[in-house]
């Protein structure tokens, strides 16, 4: 006999939430699937996609490379933001990494095996040194300087004809093999993602968040916040300079386009779409934004209008970003459970 009373709606995560708020105590296959499925799909997709050259085609694999690069820039952006530093010029970090890798390989014939790690490390130190003076100031100065630096450096290189001038440096050695390249990028993306998430929830990362929330109180606790902000810039620069160095060898070319506005706008849009403060948000945003932007390629410069519209739409309509929204909805998936089953919970 089944009356209406014997049915009720139940949130799928109820069993988990009841038992613990943070640590999942998994009681059934269903619970296990609920927790693991989203992660499993992502990891599987990451593992399989690079192998599908014949199915997906080289063109879309290149789009995947660009997507992963934008993810790295978005992760870098989010770490800066966690210390209250709003970057309007991720292209600065990207370009510095690109040029160092390009120069080392163009001038001294270094292989990517050495140029990429060197450009990542030395590039991040250089970025931190460049930005050190503005880190003393509060407010919008960091944003303004990061906005101005890539433009300035690009013009400087064109005008002084150093580092290849307008022609740039070409015929750089490639990183062989698309599959390997993609796996390398994905490894770095995952490493950065988990590393940054861990870092920001540690006591050390708490200081960054403190500077964002109330810098005066962090000073009053005896911290040299300019020095901490410098460390934040250095750490955030690592994935971005890596991305720049990687792309230099991927395109086998470095030139002023390495400081292009795209590398600033795309990660920013990705974070706004996906949501700031979680790192995963920016990654999700990039995964949506980049293929979309490829499809819209035929619209040419109209694409900027579309980015701007997306920026507007999400910052007004969904300021928390897609990731937090989807996560909340996912935890609210309701299904019919019989009363029988509920009793077992």
């Amino acid at each position, binding site marked *: 006999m089944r009356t209406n009373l014997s049915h009720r709606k139940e949130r799928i995560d109820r069993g988990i939430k009841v038992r613990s708020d943070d640590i999942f105590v998994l009681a059934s296959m269903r619970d296990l699937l609920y927790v693991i499925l989203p992660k499993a799909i992502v990891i599987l997709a990451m593992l399989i996609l690079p192998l599908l050259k014949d199915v997906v085609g080289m063109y879309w694999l290149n789009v995947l490379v660009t997507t992963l690069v934008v993810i790295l820039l978005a992760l870098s952006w989010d770490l800066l933001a966690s210390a209250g530093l709003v970057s309007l010029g991720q292209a600065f970090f990207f370009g510095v990494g690109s040029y160092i890798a390009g120069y080392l390989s163009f001038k001294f014939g270094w292989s990517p095996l050495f140029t990429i790690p060197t450009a990542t490390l030395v590039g991040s130190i250089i970025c931190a040194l460049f930005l050190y003076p503005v880190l003393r100031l509060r407010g919008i100065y960091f944003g303004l300087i990061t906005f101005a630096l890539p433009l300035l450096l690009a013009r400087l290189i064109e005008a002084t004809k150093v580092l290849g001038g307008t022609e740039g440096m070409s015929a750089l050695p490639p990183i062989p093999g698309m599959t390997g390249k993609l796996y390398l990028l994905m490894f770095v993306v995952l490493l950065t993602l988990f590393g940054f998430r861990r870092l920001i929830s540690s006591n050390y990362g*708490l200081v960054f*968040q403190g500077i964002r929330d109330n810098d005066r*109180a962090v*000073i009053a*606790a005896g911290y040299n916040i300019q020095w901490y902000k410098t460390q934040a810039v250095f750490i955030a620069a690592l994935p971005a300079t890596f991305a720049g160095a990687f792309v230099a060898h991927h395109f086998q070319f470095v030139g002023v386009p390495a400081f292009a506005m795209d590398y600033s706008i795309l990660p920013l849009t990705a974070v706004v779409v996906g949501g700031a403060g979680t790192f995963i948000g920016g990654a999700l945003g990039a995964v949506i934004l980049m293929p979309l932007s490829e499809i819209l390629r035929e619209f040419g410069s109209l694409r900027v209008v579309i980015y701007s519209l997306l920026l507007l739409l999400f910052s007004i309509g969904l300021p928390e970003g897609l990731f937090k929204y989807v996560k909340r909805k996912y935890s609210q998936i309701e299904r019919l459970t019989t009363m029988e089953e509920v009793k077992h919970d």
Partner: protein
Amino acid sequence: MIEPIIKISNLCKSFGGTKATNDVSFELKPGEALGIIGPNGSGKSTLINLISGFVKPDKGQILFKGINITGMAPHKIVNLGIARSFQMSRPFYNMSVFKNLIIPISSPRARKLRGGKYGDLDEAAIHLLEEVGFERDSQVPYKEAGALPHGYLKRLELARCLALEPDIVILDELFSGMSMSEIASVVPLLERIKKEGKTLIMVEHRLTELFKIIDKIIVLNFGMKIAEGLPRDVMTQDEVTSAYLGSEVKTGA
């Protein structure tokens, strides 16, 4: 003769045309408790900002344990042993209350004093909250700090100072916005801090409670020190009653 722990001489600071601090001098012995009073805008907070390094003086000198700290960076002054609270207590909004204390507890000074031993920082934070009157078993320490009522924020601010284990504690209007019972719960703690030998400087408008704790007061008016001494001596001086109490009665503060 005990050396003063802090000696302030001829401190001056102007903002545009206003002389916020005008030739102020005083000194304190270790363990002494000083009250600073004066009408609104008389330069009390500015004096604290000068001592703690958040504002640089135009003239004058501040000696702390014989070290010249005039114009030193504020975080360095903290690490030497002067902690301060802010009149407007703003927490780290997006962190839970006890996480708010991790930052001062793991600060350079606190770490050095513990000799590099970390211990359970979360536990230390909860313990400190208990000292300033947060109930351990309540949910309050785990709430987001942005949602705290004013009186709790003030006590969190005090805990933040104490976490630094300072030699001098400077409190800018700790009592304002606190309820009578909240003040009553904090006064014994302040008395104990004093007994432990820490030097206290308190800016207050709540005179009755202030006079229970402090040994002497200075009165500021238009940035100038107009009186210094024992509360009962100072409060009967004509200049003080007209400058400070007069305005207090008039504004009803």
